[in-house]
């Protein structure tokens, strides 16, 4: 599907740990799973109302989100790897396990 209309879902990518940019230097490759795609169909009347109130300045100086987000609903427990200084690290909830519009 054209990128803009791909529905929210789980994708996966083989990346080296270093590429994650978390500060760990390791050549180990892991499977990074993330959520991407559009949630247009998941909007509710709440979103419409909130957007209108924001436009009419009835809601101001607040961090609000008037559209559903494509986000993980569950995460993978943990993944471990050996870094370049031969020390092990374990990272929890790095990859998504399930996605949805919230």
């Amino acid at each position: 599907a054209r990128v803009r209309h791909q529905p929210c879902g789980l994708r996966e990518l083989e990346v080296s740990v270093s590429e994650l940019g978390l500060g760990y230097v390791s050549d180990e490759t892991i499977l990074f799973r993330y959520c991407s795609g559009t949630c247009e169909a998941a909007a509710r009347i709440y979103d419409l109302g909130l957007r209108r109130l924001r436009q009419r300045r009835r809601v101001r100086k607040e961090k609000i989100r008037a559209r559903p987000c494509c986000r993980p609903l569950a995460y993978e427990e943990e993944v471990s790897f050996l870094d370049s200084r031969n020390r092990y690290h374990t990272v929890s909830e790095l990859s998504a396990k399930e996605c949805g519009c919230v």
Partner: protein
Amino acid sequence: ASPSSLQGSELHGWRPPVDCVRANELCAAESNCSSRYRTLRQCLAGRDRNTMLANKECQAALEVLQESPLYDCRCKRGMKKELQCLQIYWSIHLGLTEGEEFYEASPYEPITSRLSDIFRLASIFSGTGADPAMSVKSNHCLDAAKACNLNENCKRLRSAYISTCNREVSNFERCNRRKCHKALRQFFDRVPSEYTYRMLFCSCRDQACAERRRQTILPICSYEDKEKPNCLELRNMCRADHLCRSRLADFHANCRASYQTMTSCPSDNYQACLGSYAGMIGFDMTPNYVDSNPTSIVVSPWCSCRGSGNMEEECEKFLKDFTENPCLRNAIQAFGNGTDVNVSPKNPLFHATQPPRMEKTPSLPDDLNDSTSLGTSVITTCTSIQEQGLKLNKSKELSMCFTELTTNIIPGSNFVGSPDSVD
């Protein structure tokens, strides 16, 4: 290699073993057997075993049991009631051998699979090998970690033991070794050896790779300790636990160097040796690489022969079964190079093409010239599993690593190590 791979004529009227749990059930169902088994257990539990074993009733019980399936029963690695099976096995065999034997019979059924089976499975499952052009230079242990990380089951169980073994408990206790050992045992029991062997026995060309290989079992928690116990004391500690005792016996049965075979392995089965070596990880006798020297493979349990008193010779012999064991070293190198030995009695004559270096057999004095040793050369018909061209996509042409083995037969003896003879 197990009896099942033998031809009919060679079975010698032998009775294929049942597992000891089943044998125990069969015996319990048969009054004569169950009463004798009870008697024998009382005989063996008595204070002075020798006098007990000398009395008529105990002798009669022993004779009956020697004909029952209990006597030859074995267990399978990773079987459901493995511990119960082993307890039954040792309840009989421990009693019959007084005192400590140096080598004990393995309670496990002989391993019939071979390294070539693992290479075949590895090429089907992993599917994520390095690109052949790259792989000659690549870090095989790093590729092994990648293959594991990309397999859900392997990744989960690998992370489970790493996080357990890496978790600091207190200022005085580096980690919870008991939990770490349990997690390691689960990893090696539940993850197929196509993944675990690649991480444990990957071949290395540089120090970084060899250090990664050494770190596979998180030695700082699972292996090292403040002090090194005496190896015979460590053996006693191991033999006090049925599982550890069984894994050690299995290691000796499958890795004990023998000068009467081609590969120096008792039944010329590298997989059997590697499997029993991996089977000791997670027990008191956990072995590991002693350093990160890529070229010389030296593994050892965490012990020394200091404080052996008059048992230093026996202690050093025990330690050498790890540190200077050509069978174990050949097996690890064979896996690392993706080679296996294919020796079948039907066609003993093979012809050599290109001999790589083969480790000398164990007890030959150093000055032995080659004329009398087993001149064996092994050729690889393809590259090692790490060097196999396993593309990501589905179409994988199966490149098997099979090896022709040439053997200069010793004059005067058709001493072709028949794969099925157990030394």
